């Protein structure tokens, strides 16, 4: 009987009954001088360095596209920070989070567009929207007083569904005593022509200005959250996450804290929504759907739920990767790069790594030659792009002339093969790794690369499952320690 959880003597697994910090005491002493120096930099220093680097981006690059990706990344960082409050700190699974983002964006759009011919300045609108979102969050948080994790998840998910339904259909709402239908949200067409940000008479127009605006908001939010994290409230949230009953016994006001978490995270989402709406000069119901929710969750989980730096890192890694996927040549670099890096990281000693990589290359070329000799139909297709990797890949991966059907079959086979691979141990795992990786490359070249919008969603779903099973604490989060 093979089990996926590491055996109790596995060093990767924190042992039950010992505090992790105590357990790793010796390990810390062995750190290099460089490692110790890195550990001594205060978090304010990291933040300052990060913000300085980020602020340089629009100066280094002239490309509108790069700055645009930068703004989107900051918006995602803000969203991930907001979600982290409720999921990472308070441990409540809020699947309606995106609805607050959408509500903020829509409310901002209604208060500053031709929809009702209201054009209030941003210094008035933004506080109103943020407070309204906080109140809405409080409202959705109310059931959390009585509901345990799973029930809460489904209620919030339903809330998101309702939000989308209402927004898509609220273009002809019958209001009593008015007599005619009122168009609130523009229905499926959304609200176009939202005013740009206008702070104290200073209008923000270009993407570059938005970049600095978003960065400023980010600094304010993350400093506030960092202070909050170390405060009484922050510690109480984490106590609540670990064990609500124990927390209650320690006279922590559990219900009030849950509501506060919901409310604060909703306010962050709403604030981000205002920037989003004005940046895109419009809001549309499809912007606030399930894929966005999963994306933000993947960011928080990948970076490490509960860790501010982790969440920011997760947002950067995921948004930049997703952006790279839209371009076929970048996507190919990313795909082979990630495979190579994870092989280097996982396979020790280096002899194994060399064996797998060598085997992979030989396997591919051998198969390509054999199949080409048998039937040229299998190698007749062409991959996207024309850089050096594309040409190398063309002679290595089979590219059939009609890839859709065979690609679909191979995709299902790949999923099954990857799952089976997790069951195999020892040297056989290495042996099977080679054909599975080749199959992955085959599916990637023939099927996934041509549909980036679907591929990114598949990868996000798979990432969530894989992370939860292999490394639930994410990149920078700390592993949960059971003290029994």
């Amino acid at each position, binding site marked *: 009987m093979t089990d996926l959880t590491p055996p109790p003597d596995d060093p990767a697994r924190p042992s039950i009954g010992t505090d992790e910090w105590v357990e790793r005491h010796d390990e810390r002493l062995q750190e290099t001088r460089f490692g110790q120096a890195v550990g001594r930099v205060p978090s304010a220093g990291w933040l300052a360095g990060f913000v300085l680097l980020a602020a340089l981006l629009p100066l280094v690059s002239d490309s509108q596209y790069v700055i645009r990706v930068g703004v989107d990344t900051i918006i995602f960082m803000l969203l991930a920070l907001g979600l982290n409050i409720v999921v990472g700190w308070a441990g409540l699974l809020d699947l309606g989070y995106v609805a607050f983002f959408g509500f903020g964006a829509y409310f901002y759009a209604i208060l500053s567009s031709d929809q009702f011919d209201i054009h209030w300045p941003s210094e008035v609108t933004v506080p109103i929207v943020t407070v309204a979102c906080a109140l809405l969050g409080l409202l959705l948080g109310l059931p959390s007083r009585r509901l345990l994790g*799973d*029930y809460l998840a489904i209620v919030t998910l*339903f809330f998101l569904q309702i939000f989308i339904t209402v927004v898509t*259909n609220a273009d002809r709402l019958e209001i009593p005593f008015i007599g005619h239908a009122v168009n609130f949200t523009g229905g499926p067409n959304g609200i176009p022509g939202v005013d740009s940000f206008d702070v104290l008479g200073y209008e923000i127009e270009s993407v570059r200005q938005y970049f600095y605006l978003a960065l400023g908001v980010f600094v304010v939010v993350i400093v506030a959250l960092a202070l909050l994290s170390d405060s009484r409230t922050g510690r109480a949230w984490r106590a609540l996450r670990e064990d609500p009953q124990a927390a209650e016994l320690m006279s922590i006001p559990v219900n009030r804290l849950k509501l506060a978490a919901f409310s604060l995270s909703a306010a962050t989402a709403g604030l981000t929504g205002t920037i989003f709406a004005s940046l895109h000069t419009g809001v549309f119901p499809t912007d606030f759907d399930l894929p966005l929710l999963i994306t933000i969750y993947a960011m928080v989980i990948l970076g490490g739920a509960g860790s501010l730096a982790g969440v920011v890192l997760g947002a950067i890694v995921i948004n930049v990767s997703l952006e790279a996927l839209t371009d076929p040549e970048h996507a190919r670099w990313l795909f082979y790069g990630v495979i190579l890096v994870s092989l280097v990281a996982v396979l020790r000693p280096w002899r194994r790594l060399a064996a797998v990589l060598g085997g992979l290359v030989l396997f591919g070329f051998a198969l390509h030659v054999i199949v080409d000799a048998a039937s040229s139909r299998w190698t007749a297709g062409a991959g996207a792009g024309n850089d050096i990797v594309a040409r190398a890949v063309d002679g290595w991966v089979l590219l059939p002339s009609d890839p859709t059907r065979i690609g679909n079959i191979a995709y299902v086979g790949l999923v099954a093969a990857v799952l089976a691979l997790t069951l195999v141990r020892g040297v056989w795992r290495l042996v099977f790794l080679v054909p599975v990786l080749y199959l992955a490359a085959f599916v990637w070249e023939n099927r*996934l690369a041509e549909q980036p919008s679907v591929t990114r969603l598949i990868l996000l779903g798979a990432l969530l499952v894989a992370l*939860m099973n292999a490394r639930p604490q994410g990149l920078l989060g700390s592993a*949960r320690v059971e003290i029994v």
Partner: protein
Amino acid sequence: MIDWNVFVQLTVNGLTLGSLYALIALGYTMVYGILKLLNFAHGDVYMIGAFIGYGVLQALGGPLDPSVPVALLIVAMFAVAMVGAGGLGVAIERFAYRPLRNAPRIAPLISALGVSFFLQNSALLLFSANFRSYETFSLIDPIKGIHEGVLNISLVRILVIVTAVALMVLLTFLVRRTQLGKAMRATSFDREAAAMMGIDVDRVIVATFFISSALAGAAGVMSGLLFSQVYHFMGFTAGLKGFTAAVVGGIGSIPGAMFGGILIGLAEAYSAGYLSSVYQDLIVFSILIAFMLARPTGLFGARALQKV
């Protein structure tokens, strides 16, 4: 004055829809009863079931020119979809939930969310975003059925209701009368104690996942026959409604899930007929909230004692 024609028609619609929801709700309730896990991916298993049924239909010649008798074709669609969906459920349990059985509660939920999203978009990749149609009208004559006064039930609806009832009877028999059912009840009552009594808990959990997913697969084929369309996103709302049905009936209770399913089906049909078809989700949602706040244990659920 109530138009009885409309009322009876809505009731029939509600009952068919309700038996569909009941089958989905059973899956939620069984898994929840044993693992205390909300299986988010359940709705997507239902969707995959519908696609498997479609695949069988195409493989056996398509709805216009089936190569086997229609009755046999429908039986084959149900059988393959149930086995396929059941296998998928077992795989999901093995790879996404079992490693997390002792993790904090939020971990398997997020994993389930990932599985659901993965299945949904894999279906989008494999079958594209187009709606596929079972073309039931050429398979089963829409004119056939019971037509007595105000009562009009087409043959498809009869088929769906009868199959659902048969499956539920079978399930009740399995849970009440067989060794496996006894083991399932014991495991859901207290997993550790059951393991100490020599019950192979892993086997029971696998069996539970197989049965609940097979029911979802059957529901998928039924929805394909009823609405004649299959698409990758169909599992999401159906899953939400199935879950609502399970909560209304009292999660963990099998008769509760059946009853809750019928109730939600009727509520949806009546609200679509008399109020607004756009906001029927809102009405189901309100029922869910009302139940969760007023009676979280549902209609049939026993008040759970919380042991600390």
